[in-house]
């Protein structure tokens, strides 16, 4: 039994013990949060990369991979920081998951990061199948209210959809009950260093054989400056559009722009000169010292060998 988008139930049919998927609101309303019941799920990119990698390494004949999600739970948020895949077999009528393996891996992972706990499981693929209910049940024994994450690695809808669900009971208590998976809001969270790492990884998209080297110092500064330049160009085009009336002026954007312009520090030319010179002198002195030290140790070595 499926509920259609507008909340109108299909013609009444007896509700039996089955999985029911609550369809999400259409994309048009994507400005509104999809679900407000349940915690917000924050995912680190390393988890998604790990899932994609395990999907690529799946066994012959397996159409999807499953695994455990590890992370930390807060009052209103669940932060997923790690994961590992668990071998499983799935056929038409039965599913077998290697629970021993899952337990073992969790123990090993706990040794490295004792603060991570099992908070749910993931599966690649687009839909939630009946087997998922069973697996979800198993995971509810390991964690309270486990999160189920689906990552559509087969790109069925042309994009890689990443969704999180939590299960809820539904039906008539005592008689026929079922399990419903309600969607949760998914956010991506990065540590600063992670963001910098991701920046570098994203550059592999530009090269034809998907590789990228690590650049040297001044190249990096040049690249960062180029990025800021691009951003300024975007802002400038927006401002020009607003001035010429093509785009509606937005007050909040205007306030941000004011902040931006005010942030440029106003210093007199002499102060700036002194600041600049003293900094440059410091740096030059340190470079000189470094070169001197290197020459010194090289000399020392030659002397010892004599």
């Amino acid at each position, binding site marked *: 039994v499926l509920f259609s988008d507008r909340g109108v139930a299909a013609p009444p049919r007896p509700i039996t013990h089955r999985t029911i998927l609550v369809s999400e609101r259409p994309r048009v309303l994507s400005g509104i949060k999809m679900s407000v019941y349940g915690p917000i799920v924050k995912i680190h990119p390393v988890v998604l990369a790990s899932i994609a990698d395990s999907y690529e390494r799946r066994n012959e004949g397996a159409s999807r991979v499953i695994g455990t999600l590890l992370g930390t739970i807060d009052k209103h948020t669940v932060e997923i920081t790690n994961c590992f895949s668990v071998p499983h077999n799935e056929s038409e009528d039965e599913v077998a998951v290697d629970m021993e393996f899952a337990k073992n891996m969790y123990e090993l992972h706990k040794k*490295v990061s004792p603060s991570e706990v099992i908070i749910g499981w993931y599966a690649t693929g687009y839909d939630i199948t009946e087997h998922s209910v069973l697996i979800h049940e198993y995971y509810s024994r390991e964690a309270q209210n486990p999160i189920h994450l689906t990552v559509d690695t087969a790109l069925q809808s042309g*994009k890689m959809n*990443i969704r999180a669900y939590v299960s809820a009971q539904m039906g008539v208590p005592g008689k026929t009950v079922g399990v419903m998976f309600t969607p949760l809001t998914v956010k991506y969270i990065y540590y600063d260093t992670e963001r910098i*790492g991701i920046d570098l990884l994203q550059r592999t998209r530009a090269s034809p054989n998907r590789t990228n*080297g690590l650049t040297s110092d001044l190249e990096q500064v040049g690249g960062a400056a180029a990025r800021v330049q691009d*951003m300024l160009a975007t802002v400038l085009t927006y401002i020009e559009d607003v001035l010429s009336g093509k785009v509606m002026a937005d007050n909040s954007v205007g306030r941000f722009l004011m902040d931006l312009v005010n942030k440029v520090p106003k210093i007199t030319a002499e102060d700036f000169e002194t600041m600049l010179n003293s900094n440059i002198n410091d*740096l*030059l002195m340190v470079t000189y010292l470094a070169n001197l030290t290197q020459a010194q140790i090289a000399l020392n070595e030659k002397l010892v060998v004599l």
Partner: protein
Amino acid sequence: MAARKESAATTTAPATPATTTTANTLDSPVKQIQIEGLVVLKIIKHYQEEGQGSEVVQGVLLGLVVEDRLEITNCFPFPQHTEDDADFDEVQYQMEMMRSLRHVNIDHLHVGWYQSTYYGSFVSRALLDSQFSYQHAIEESVVLIYDPIKTAQGSLCLKAYRLTPKLMEICKEKDFTPEGLKKANIGFEHMFEEVPIIIKNSHLINVLMWELEEKSTVADKHELLNLSSSNHLEKSLQMLMDRVDDMSQDIVKYNTYSRNLSKQQQQKHQYVQRRQQENAQRQSRGEPPLPEEDLSKMFKPPQPPPRMDTLLIAGQINTYCQNVKEFTSQNLGKLFMAEALQGHNS
């Protein structure tokens, strides 16, 4: 979203620093390292979560060797060495982990290890020993040094090192005396060789990157354009000074040793001369000459100090100097840029 016009001319091999020999010039079995994006993310995460402060975090690299390339496809972290975990069996942890990973089709071939570093101080005896045992067992292994502080300043700092064949020879023979090192003709510049790294992502990961760019709302912080440098410079110089102190102590030790040695040579010489004189006198008087005494027992030569530590300290100082120079060159560039902008305004 601002389009990122990445220069298509990013070279696949970064400019290697002038002092470390590149793997291309030696005939080492590994000329290039190819790392998957996943490994980079895992290393970053491991340090971020478990390695605050000046602790080092370590882990194992898994992958395979393809022709002259070492491909690193996965990694797993090692727990910290805690005092109260005396019965923690590292080997067992490693075996278990690798066995489990094999079940999910992850490459279980051990190809190296990674370590985080604090301001570039990684040239130590421990690292040398570990890398030596790795390289001895597996010829192509490398150690990846991840510098989190430099990474936090704006761009990923990940370097791969191997021991040069010369250093391997010396470690094998454990002959660390000055003569031994002189024979091998090894300098601090030839201890480690840096191997160029390229990062490769599979198509699926690339799709993931597109998704993330679209969906994530994390703003760029542009730490790379940060002008303040004094804090980082201070710390680096502090560490450099400590090392230079160590070095000077070592030099003093070596000087005393050589002075003692030469003094002893002199004494030996004098003794031999006196002996000869006495013998000549005795002969002229017709008495039997005194027996030749074993000189080496009387004059025990002083212990030559092991030179390996000096080499390591010199190598470490070299690394510090390199890092400082990189940092200053970047900052000089930024300062000149700021000057140009300000000049434009006023």
